[in-house]
């Protein structure tokens, strides 16, 4: 059996459909990861040990176990407890939860990087806790973490092929679907790989541009 480049091009329309699914999963998952990561970071800083320790344990646990198994877990277990969601929504949620444990660490290092004087000044000015966070700490912490957060978009995008395990047809899933019809797997899989590589490199380039524009702390 030979490798036919024409097969790679024939697979491209399916790849573009799959790309939209992969980007949707990445986008939804990324929003979840950004928000949930901030929640985890807050809770881990809590003065109450009964809050910070279990959250810390949960974050470490999610971070050290495979995304694939978490996908299976949510895909099979959520319906058992009466929550029915589409495979794409389940996948995006699992992806977001998994990466929230990474982004929470990033936020934590960003928050820790704000000089203690800023906290003291906020206290001295009698700012409320909410205003201390929204007007003093976060505007200084978030620019610091933009580069690291950008990298996770790319990492999440590269994890989307795993969603094929829970019946989401993204690019690799589409490639396998073509293969099972034509009995030629190599060309569509090569097409999927090519698109993943190009989009991931493109994202890396965009992340570097964003980093250059917004990566500095403005006072």
């Amino acid at each position, binding site marked *: 059996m030979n490798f036919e480049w024409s097969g790679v091009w024939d697979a491209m329309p399916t790849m573009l459909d799959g790309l939209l699914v992969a980007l949707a999963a990445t986008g939804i998952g990324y929003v979840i990861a950004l928000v949930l990561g901030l929640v985890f970071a807050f809770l881990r800083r809590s003065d109450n040990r009964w809050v910070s320790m279990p959250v810390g344990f949960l974050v470490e646990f999610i971070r050290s176990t495979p995304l694939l198994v978490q996908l299976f877990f949510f895909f099979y*277990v959520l319906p058992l407890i009466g929550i029915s969601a589409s495979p794409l929504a389940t996948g995006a949620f699992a992806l977001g939860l998994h990466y929230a444990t990474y982004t929470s660490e990033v936020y934590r290092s960003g928050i820790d990087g704000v000089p203690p004087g800023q906290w003291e000044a906020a206290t001295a000015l009698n700012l409320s806790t909410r205003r201390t966070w929204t007007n003093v700490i976060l505007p200084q912490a978030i620019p610091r973490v933009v580069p*690291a957060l950008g990298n996770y978009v790319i990492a999440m995008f590269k994890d989307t092929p795993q969603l094929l395990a829970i019946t989401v047809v993204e690019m690799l899933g589409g490639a396998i679907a073509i293969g099972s019809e034509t009995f030629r797997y190599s060309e569509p*899989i090569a097409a999927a790989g090519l698109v993943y590589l190009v989009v991931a490199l493109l994202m890396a380039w965009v992340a570097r541009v964003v980093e250059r524009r917004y990566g500095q702390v403005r006072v």
Partner: protein
Amino acid sequence: MSSGLMSYVWEGLGNTLLLTVFGALLGLVFAFIAGLGRSSERTWVRGIAMVYTEIFRGFPSLVLLFALIFIVPTFGYQLNPLFAGILALALNIGAYAAEVVRGAVKAVPPGQIEAAIALNFTPWQRLRKVVLPQAVVAMIPPFTNNLIELLKATSLVSLVYISDLTFSAQLIRASTGETALVFFGLLVGYGVIALFFTAIMKLLERMAARSLGRTVPSGLFGRKEVAA
């Protein structure tokens, strides 16, 4: 659980550990070649090392695994599935770890290298006796992250029907129907293996630091964040 099902667990555990350990060793080789290659004086060596790290960091490991299993045979080579799994994981993690090697080598103070040159060390002696002993200590904590990422990535091989821990769990789920219990147990299993590997790496870190006359703060949960 019957002993028949337990045998699935042991087989799966064995293959998961095999994939992790050999993937890590092979990945380490790729990482050192590419990481040291990127600080080479020769442009073409730097170029090859850079292309390797950029391509394999931009490529999902699952796609790489499918490529090795489905595309390579069309060129006339049939890889053993387990070896294909190890190779795909190693190529991927090696590209990430290469960046760690490069960063750690760059972080060795220039005075150390100048001193080695002044003492008329050959480039090989410089690397072997001065640069690496110091750089390796700095590499171990980020390598721990890489190792856990590798352990997590081994679960992907279950999708190409290699009987790792995740694959065994699928078989057990199919035969017992205890879905929630099986997957929760599987998650805990991976968590325990991750703790085990973290403890080993901590030990290695302490040994490497002691050989330089430094000490490392104790504690198991000190894993540091490294950007992906």
